[in-house]
């Protein structure tokens, strides 16, 4: 299969795709395969930077998404991969309901259907 110019642009022009994804989030116009918005919170100097991605049932349905939505899923996946790479914990940690307790679950692979992920900070013995 020949690489089209569009595919190549997809590879290199991340900024444009990020911008398009941000606009899409603001307008809430998502592809049909999108279940809703998921969020990865990355701890850092910022406090927590929330990164949004379109929730889908599995990565197999990625091709049903628009290029910027695909990019957002890929970015979320890259966060989980890099966190694993840097030995940072990624937790699926939904805010608890009233009168219940937090039940964080360690995550090692990216599940695009999950609602909230938290990339925790790096700790050491002091």
């Amino acid at each position, binding site marked *: 299969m020949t690489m089209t110019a569009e595919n190549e642009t997809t590879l290199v022009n*991340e900024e444009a795709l990020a911008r398009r994804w941000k606009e899409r989030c603001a307008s809430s116009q998502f592809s049909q395969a999108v279940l809703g918005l998921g969020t990865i919170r990355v*701890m850092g100097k910022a*406090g927590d*930077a929330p990164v949004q991605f379109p929730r889908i049932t599995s990565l197999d349905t990625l091709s049903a998404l628009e290029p910027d939505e695909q990019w957002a899923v890929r970015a979320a996946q890259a966060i989980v991969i890099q966190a694993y790479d*840097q030995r940072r*914990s990624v937790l699926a940690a939904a805010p608890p309901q009233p009168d219940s307790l937090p039940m964080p*679950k360690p995550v090692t692979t990216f599940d695009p259907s999950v609602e909230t992920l938290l*990339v925790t900070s*790096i700790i050491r013995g*002091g």
Partner: protein
Amino acid sequence: MPRSLANGDYSLVMAVESSSRADSWYRVLADRQTGALSCDCPPWTFKQDAQASTSGRSCHHTRLAQQLSRATPLSATTPAGAFAQGRALASLISATQQQWPGLRGEWSIEGRVAEINEKPYVFFLLTLALGNGGMATGVTAFAQRHRPTQQHLQTRVAMWSGYAIASEVARIGGFPLAGQPPEHFRVTSGRRARRAVAGPASTPAIGLGDILRIGDVEDLGDGLRPTERAELTLRLFLGEQLYQQLETRGFLDVSSAHYAEEQRVYRLRRDPSKRYERRVRVFERGRYFNDLCIVRAQNVPEADHFLTVFLGLLSDEETTLSVVKRHNIFAPNSDGRERETVPAIWQPRLCIAPPKILPDDVLNWQSGNPGCPRCWLHLRAELLREMSNCVQVEGIDESEHQLLHARFLQRCDPLADGCGTANQPTTAEGSHRLR
């Protein structure tokens, strides 16, 4: 502009894992103008290669890359055994396709075992044949002594070989840039190394290669300061009830799942000024046993650190405790004179051990074998759902006596003004115990 891989001045020939440091990567690069090879490893950087010719600079890795580029057969290669089984190899391609969905064409992969400097390595050559006749390749070499897991192989092949192929495809398409490459080994001075841990001062553009740095972009346009943002996140993930308990009492207790026999409880205390780490107080069978000093290894607000330790002890106690070495354990009251009056009551929890992914498990990765890691993940999720009272949530309407006492303790705590940290020297050290 300095010449770099990210700027398209070089192409990535091969990524080689350090034989001494697991998951530390040297890149063998080819200058796109001259074809000269270079490497990130210390022998190349410091020109220490005894076998270097007088005319050029080299290292074990560049010599090997040269052999590969000349299609000279490597000496004493063997098939990569279990690593090269069809399913295991196919999963490497799948992982790369998932990470780089824009790459289309016919994928193939080959795995071989060969030696670099007499140390055994597993090599994976990933190839993408493009529809227009072009071809892009990426080589990733893993040091066998680090016993790479299948997941490690998948993520690193996707990361390194995927990047090499993506940048080559982009170049073929007329685009010189392919974004930030993955993190690699760097020779750094002490100051540079410290700066690298703390993160860059500002990160104007985030590529997929350094996407975690998004956490370091301080101005997110929400009008909040980092401390305010972190406090909101802490509140969100604790829930209103626990957060109020923390605010009122200054600590939260987490019952240990791994040390159930000892009825261990971790008391996570919070600095009233919300600036410094406090040592974790450990109780066993209701007795205050020792202090664990766990501090930030990156620049994050205190609320983030507190939440990290709290959720870490809940979800993966062993990993969280693994940062604590013998010299990070202190005698009781090592960072404050306040006495404990609220009993630390252990409550039973199920022991949830993280899955150990061993090379032998690799072959069962996608099978229905109940011993395979994926099944473990599922089982663990089921177990976690049944996890009972792991955190002691006490009523907000606790006795006035306790509240008054807690406030008194906060006032007389020498660290309450924020002058101390969890790192301060201890007045007494003893009773060191680490399991």
